[in-house]
């Protein structure tokens, strides 16, 4: 175990560690461009030069491995001068168009220039003109003038994705990143290129010019795209800065060694648009004749409660069917179970609609099961109590089930519109609770708007049985509410009181009552999540 | 009999027409006069077909605006009293004019027509009584508005008016002593005498201190700056906060009519009423030297005109005061009324008594 001194601080690290990693342990940040913790070091940018005692020339911190008794200076005049000079070189042909560059505000070149350089350019010649707005593929745009040729993107595609779609062509100051002519980027991970790029050369089309980065708030969350449960940051703003009036601007991956490292697949990354989609349900509405009338929550609850009770009184609990969705959080699902199953004794609860987990995975991050909380729904026992979800729909068609309560699920997506139409049109009462309009809403007698994953707090349990927390980044759109609150309100209207004030209270109860969750609370789940200890799982 | 009624109605029409018109014009005059005093131009935007006429159309525009406004009654207020209050304010202010003589007795077609609507023998008491009644409108307005600020405003107003009522009434006592009558026509007539044969024996000569007290107290009664604490449109909230539309206009007009009423009473009590110096029913004369006879009708016209001009002057003067002096603080207002004006009024009564007694004796 070599022990070395970095800027007068002693640190002991594993053999084979590089200086930059050792410095990170001491919270010393060594500026760098080409170095990326998850990619091989290539010493391309020369930004991370540090002085090592007894070595006359400066060394690259990203590739120099530590030795015992090494003495490293990351901040002396020699190093600062070198950084300044490197930056001066990097900026020779870099256009000074930060105001229109999408990366401004989160650009490492900009940051380090202000931190270390602040030189006035000595370069009097004309700047090298390169290609601008190069279309690399369906999701990424390249601006070669802004590129500093750190090759992070090239290496990412080579080392992580393995598709090798980008290369550096030409020579000297003509060098440019590019695709092989006529072969655009096609892989499912190209969204990461914009994150990986330390400058504004690679920008995501989805985010391009939509908003300046400093207008955005960031909140830790979990990607709801599949059962991997990649850790993400939600970048959002309550005020809209673009024509589509969106509030969530992008999802970026958040480091988690256990789940997604530093990456995020495009399916999840660009799957957030439903949050601000025009088809969002924003107010509770009731069917009056053929029309839907927007009402307030109390009215909606009263009506749903009254009709549910009517069906209860005329038939039996077995004439009610509940289909929750594995898109919901543990807390939402627990409320569904607690109220409908344990309190109202309805046994027709199941989330496994036929084909629920048959998407297409890619073997890396994207899983075939496109639901973030399948494992949670299983653990909470929302399947296997009674008939399968497909049977519930079938029973509705046969008239055995008179009332159907859909919590966030979209049966038409799996079963086809025809089947759903024939089933739901038979039911005496269809309640749809969810965030976006779907085909089943056509038959709903009451529509209760639910909040999306960025608008509520809660936990997801991913396929590895890892409980991870989502945080609220935005206020729920319109009058929508988190699903657990809707069920809580409905329960209260029907005369059942649950003492929950926040999602955290529900989680405490889950921890108390559900095997596997025992002893957990939000603090223990933390930002990185916690893996459940499941016996025989 | 019938002709008497007709004549009375004619007089009423004349007086009220005059008063209401002057009140309307005062709204314009207040803006224009304050503007001119303050080196401004003043309201001049309302126009009819491009004709602006120095902003004279503004009162009309105001009326149009005020009538088309929503008439709003606070849901928790007393609907009847809320509606009654502004009209009470108008009524009490207007009633005072019934006893104010605006000219000498007119001899026409063998009839003696006194140029006063109702020559009550308790004229002064009538004036003071109606002045006091005016406070009802304020209190009712404040109370029926269901608004604590309105109520506070009206309480302020009630306290203020009652305080100054005393000084007002006591200052008038001096005038009664001087002319020996409470009938306004008599008082006006008595002011046709001359002191030392050349100085008109007007109230202001007989009662200089009384005049000041009366004028100050009367200003306070009208609730205008510097005594405008009940309203204080600009900062403290007054009793007509909850009034809008025409009812607000009624208060507004009531205030101007009060101004004219005060001007009329001051003219009658202290500035010779309809008397014009050196003109009497015989004609123009220089005391002790000569007389130029004038026709009776001309004399009456001159006298009525003089009365109107005097009233206008005092209206102007009261506007002048309003745009010159800043507002009292409330404790200063009460202190001034009780600790200064009232003792002064008593002193005036005693002094007047002593002086008149010694002259008669």
């Amino acid at each position, binding site marked *: 175990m070599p022990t070395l001194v970095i800027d007068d601080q002693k640190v002991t690290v594993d053999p084979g560690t590089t200086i930059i990693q050792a410095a990170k342990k001491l919270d010393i940040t060594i500026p760098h461009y080409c170095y990326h913790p998850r990619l091989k070091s290539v010493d391309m940018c020369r930004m991370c030069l540090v002085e090592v005692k007894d070595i006359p020339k400066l060394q690259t911190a990203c590739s120099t491995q530590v030795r015992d008794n090494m003495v490293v200076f990351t901040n002396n005049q020699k190093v600062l001068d070198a950084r300044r000079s490197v930056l001066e070189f990097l900026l020779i042909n870099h256009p000074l168009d930060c105001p229109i560059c999408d990366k401004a505000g989160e650009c490492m070149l900009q940051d380090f220039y202000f931190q270390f350089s602040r030189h006035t350019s000595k370069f009097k010649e004309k700047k090298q003109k390169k290609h601008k707005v190069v279309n690399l593929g369906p999701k990424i745009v390249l601006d070669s003038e802004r590129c500093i040729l750190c090759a992070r993107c090239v290496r990412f595609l080579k080392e992580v994705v393995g598709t*090798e*779609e*980008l*290369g*550096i*062509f*030409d*020579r000297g100051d003509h060098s440019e990143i590019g*695709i*092989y*002519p006529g*072969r655009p980027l096609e892989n499912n991970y190209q969204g990461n290129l914009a994150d990986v790029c330390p400058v504004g050369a690679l920008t995501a089309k989805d985010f391009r010019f939509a908003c300046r980065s400093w207008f955005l708030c960031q909140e830790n969350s979990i990607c709801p795209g599949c059962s991997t449960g990649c850790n993400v940051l939600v970048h959002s703003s309550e005020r809209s800065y673009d024509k589509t009036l969106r509030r969530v601007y992008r999802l970026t991956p958040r480091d988690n060694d256990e789940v997604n490292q530093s990456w995020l697949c495009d399916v999840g990354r660009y799957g957030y648009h439903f949050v601000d989609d025009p088809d969002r349900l924003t107010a509770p509405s009731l069917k009056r004749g053929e029309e839907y009338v927007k009402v307030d929550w109390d009215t909606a609850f009263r009506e749903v409660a009254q009709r549910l009770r009517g069906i209860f009184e005329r038939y039996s609990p077995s004439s009610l069917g509940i289909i929750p969705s594995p898109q919901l959080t543990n807390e939402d699902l627990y409320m569904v179970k607690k109220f409908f199953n344990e309190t109202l004794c309805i046994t027709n609860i199941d989330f496994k609609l036929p084909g629920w987990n048959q998407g297409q995975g890619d073997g890396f991050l994207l899983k075939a099961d496109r639901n973030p909380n399948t494992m949670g729904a299983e653990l909470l026992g929302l399947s296997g109590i009674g008939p399968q979800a497909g049977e519930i729909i079938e029973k509705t068609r046969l008239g055995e089930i008179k009332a159907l309560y859909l919590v966030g699920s979209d049966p038409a997506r799996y079963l086809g519109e025809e089947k759903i139409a024939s089933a739901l049109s038979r039911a005496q009462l269809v309640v749809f609770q969810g965030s976006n309009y779907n085909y089943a809403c056509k038959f709903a007698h009451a529509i209760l708007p639910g909040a999306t994953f960025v608008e509520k707090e809660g936990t997801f349990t991913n396929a590895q049985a890892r409980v991870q927390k989502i945080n609220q980044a935005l206020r729920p759109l319109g009058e929508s509410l988190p699903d657990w609150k809707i069920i809580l309100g409905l329960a209260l209207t029907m005369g059942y009181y649950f003492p929950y004030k926040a999602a955290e209270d529900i989680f405490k109860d889950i921890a108390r009552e559900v095997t596997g969750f025992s002893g957990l609370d939000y603090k223990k789940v933390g930002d990185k999540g916690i893996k459940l200890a499941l016996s025989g799982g | 009999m019938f002709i008497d009624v007709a004549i009375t109605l004619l007089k009423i029409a004349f007086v009220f027409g005059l008063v209401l018109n002057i009140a309307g014009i005062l709204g314009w005059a207040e803006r224009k006069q304050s503007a001119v005093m303050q080196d401004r131009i003043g309201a001049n935007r309302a126009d009819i077909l491009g004709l602006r006429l120095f902003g004279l159309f503004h009162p009309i525009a105001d009326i149009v605006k005020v009538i088309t406004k929503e008439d709003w009654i606070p849901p928790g207020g007393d609907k009847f009293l809320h509606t009654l209050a502004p009209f009470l304010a108008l009524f009490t202010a207007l009633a005072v004019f019934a006893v104010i003589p605006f000219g000498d007795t007119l001899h026409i077609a063998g009839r003696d027509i006194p140029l006063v609507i109702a020559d009550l023998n308790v004229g002064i008491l009538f004036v003071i009584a109606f002045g006091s009644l005016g406070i009802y409108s304020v209190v009712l307005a404040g109370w029926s508005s269901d608004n604590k600020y309105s109520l506070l405003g009206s309480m302020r107003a009630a306290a203020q008016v009652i305080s100054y009522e005393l000084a007002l009434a006591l200052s008038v006592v001096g005038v009664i002593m001087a002319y020996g009558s409470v009938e306004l026509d008599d008082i006006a007539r008595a002011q046709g005498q001359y002191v030392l044969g050349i100085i008109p024996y007007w109230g202001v000569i007989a009662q200089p201190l009384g005049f000041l007290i009366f004028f100050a107290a009367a200003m306070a009664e009208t609730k205008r700056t510097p005594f405008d604490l009940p309203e204080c449109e600009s900062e403290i909230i007054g009793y007509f906060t909850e009034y809008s539309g025409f009812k607000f206009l009624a208060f507004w007009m009531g205030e101007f009519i009060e101004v004219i009423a005060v001007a009329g009473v001051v003219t009658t009590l202290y500035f010779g009423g309809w008397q014009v110096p050196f003109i009497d029913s015989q004609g123009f004369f220089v005391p002790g030297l000569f007389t130029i006879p004038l026709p009776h009708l001309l004399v009456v016209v001159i006298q009525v005109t003089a009365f109107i001009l005097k009233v206008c002057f005092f209206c102007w003067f009261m506007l002048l005061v309003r745009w010159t002096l800043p507002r009292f603080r409330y404790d200063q207002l009460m202190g001034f009324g009780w600790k200064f004006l009232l003792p002064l009024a008593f002193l005036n009564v005693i002094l007047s008594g002593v002086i008149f007694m010694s002259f008669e004796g």
Partner: protein
Amino acid sequence: MSKGLEFSKKTKERLQAIVAKYPEKGAALLPTLWLAQREFSAITPEVEEYVAGLLGLSLVRVHEALSFYTMYTPQPLGKYHIQLCTNISCSLLGAEELLAYLKKRLNIEAGETTPDKKFTLSTVECLGYCGTAPVMRLNETFYENLTENGIDQILRKLP
């Protein structure tokens, strides 16, 4: 997806020998490209694909090498490739005039090929003969101390 593009047997043998020299097949990219250029006269996209397939490299890697080195050409050249140095020493000694002369004589611009596919004219940076500037390279032969007359003679001698 080489559309029927294939090295001749002789070239294949040479390639075998070259590849054997390197620990990794991919390292033989440059000589293989050189062989390909000889064989197919230019490294067209089809050739790139063929080479990439032969060496188990991605297309992008082959294209990187192709774009980096100037002696590989993506377009077919004329029979004679004239590369005239226009760097400092040569320019000082009249390379610019020579270029103008060549352009006039061949009736093409720099970088173009004559319609009869006989000549291709291109300008290059230093060829390493500054001591005997101006210099031009005709295919693989270098000509030093050039003059207009000298060029005439050289070109006249060509078959």
